[in-house]
């Protein structure tokens, strides 16, 4: 216990300590119910099945022709979207787990920790598991379906910078949901999924936004995930690949600038909203609420 936590090292910095200990705790909660083999099957089976549903749908309609730009965009979009669901729901579920399932939230808030960074840390575990799932799904796509990914031509600068900004945005959304959950007695189970489901529909993850009715298309422009998916797909498939037309008019730099704007905005909003929400939850006596809802 002492060795794995090495608490001495972290005593100086509350934020860093809260983040790392939460990430370690999250990993224990996520993984210790099963042996590593079963856990790895569990971590891979769901995302792989989700992407295979789309592959079969695509294959049925195109009679098995998979070497098209549309297929690559759909496959990549769905694979990368795993990170969105994992981070957004991962952060907000930490509140549900601690409060409703383990009854630990009140005890946590009695300790000298930073709750904001604690939640970020809990979300990182889901991110780690989802990253492994994404990698396996991508490798599976390259090997089995001939996904045109060439590691040598990938624009790593664009991919890494857009992904870092995208993850900050998603964490911000997750923290807002987590903050909302602190004050919510009903439907908190479904909020993360509802947001992730809505983003799946409106961000062009698996189909071009232009397919949506014209009055719904602008909704897609409101979410950072739309820009991140576009940037990441461009970076992975190369500049000459014909992608979805919706954001084709935006340059790589413009995509990064928009993402940076969202990242700053969501970080500020999530920080303010989390602290206000925590204060409200404490004032109203909701921090130790167990609704059994």
């Amino acid at each position, binding site marked *: 216990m002492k060795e794995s936590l090495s608490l001495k090292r972290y005593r100086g910095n509350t934020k860093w300590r809260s983040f790392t200990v939460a990430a370690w705790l999250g990993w224990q909660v996520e993984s210790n119910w099963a042996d590593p083999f079963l856990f790895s099957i*569990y971590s891979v089976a769901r995302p792989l099945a989700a992407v295979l549903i789309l592959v079969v749908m695509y294959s049925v309609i195109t009679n098995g022709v998979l070497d098209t730009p549309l297929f690559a965009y759909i496959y990549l979009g769905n694979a990368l979207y795993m990170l969105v669901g994992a981070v957004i729901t991962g952060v907000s579920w930490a509140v549900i787990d601690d409060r409703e399932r383990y009854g630990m939230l009140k005890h946590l808030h009695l300790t000298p920790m930073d709750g904001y960074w604690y939640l970020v840390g809990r979300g990182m575990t889901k991110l780690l598991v989802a990253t492994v799932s994404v990698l396996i799904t991508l490798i599976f796509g390259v090997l089995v379906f001939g996904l045109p990914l060439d590691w040598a031509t990938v624009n790593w600068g664009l991919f890494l910078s857009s992904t870092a900004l995208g993850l900050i945005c998603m964490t911000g959304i997750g923290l807002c949901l987590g903050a909302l959950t602190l004050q919510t007695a009903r439907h908190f189970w479904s909020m993360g999924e*509802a947001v992730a489901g809505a983003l799946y*529909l409106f961000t062009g993850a698996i189909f071009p936004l232009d397919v949506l009715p014209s009055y719904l298309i602008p909704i897609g422009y409101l979410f950072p995930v739309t820009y991140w998916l576009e940037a990441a797909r461009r970076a992975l498939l190369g500049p000459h690949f014909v992608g979805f037309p919706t954001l084709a008019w935006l340059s790589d730099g413009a995509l990064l600038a928009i993402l940076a704007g969202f990242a700053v905005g969501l970080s500020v909003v999530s920080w303010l909203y989390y602290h206000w929400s925590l204060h409200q939850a404490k004032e109203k006596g909701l921090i130790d609420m167990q609704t059994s809802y």
Partner: protein
Amino acid sequence: MSELAKATGLKLFWYTVWARAYPRLIGSFREKSWMFFETVLPLLAVAAFVFVYRALDAPADYVGFAVVGGAMTAFWLNVLWSMASQLYWDKEQGNLEIYVMAPGSLMAVLLGMAVGGLVMAAARALTILALSTLLFGVSYQLGSLPFLAVIFTLTMIALYGMGMLFASVFLVAGREAWHLSNLLQEPIYLASGFYFPVRAMGFWVATFASILPLTLGLDAMRQLLFSAGATLGFLSVPAEASILAVMGVLFIGAAYQSLSKLEARGRRDGRLIEKRR
């Protein structure tokens, strides 16, 4: 109260079924906001798959396939989360020990859960179906309404029979029940062809997936609802109906056996209501 106290045999069984079904029936209509979340979430998934088909210029019937499959997810999710996992939840919340101590049989409790859950899920499925049909302009070519009703009934009997069987299996699984239920979503949507004709998975995968009643039930319903359904069906509708009928008997019988064994083991070892996290 005095009448309940005297109930024995079949009368007790009947009362127990309705006592367990009652909170689900009443609860689903009293807490109307559940309906919003439980229909909107599947609706979002259905919409995403419909737009994928539209992006691919797929024939109109495929949109209908996705809509019907999406509506049927309500039943599968209900079986997973409100049947299979339910005894585990009940144990966690302290209800299971009350069920065990009560004079009614656990089989009646499970049947009550199934009846209540079926009504809840049917309301959600109908809402998803109606909204999706309106939103995406799905057109149906109904072959035979009575036959469709028979297929649906057989599918539900087999499906909820399987849910009753899973309930005791998941109870043994303990805290892994949660993860098992999670695991049995997307892989089952894939194997059972919720969003495409299961025949597309190939004969052997479709055959293997047919152990799940929804695979054959969904396939048969699509054959009866859409003009392209018959040409894209896996087996003939009468064959699928016969297999579903057999499945219903087998699953309910197996659920009874499994529950009896579990109860006997639990009483012997004294660990049926043990809480471990």
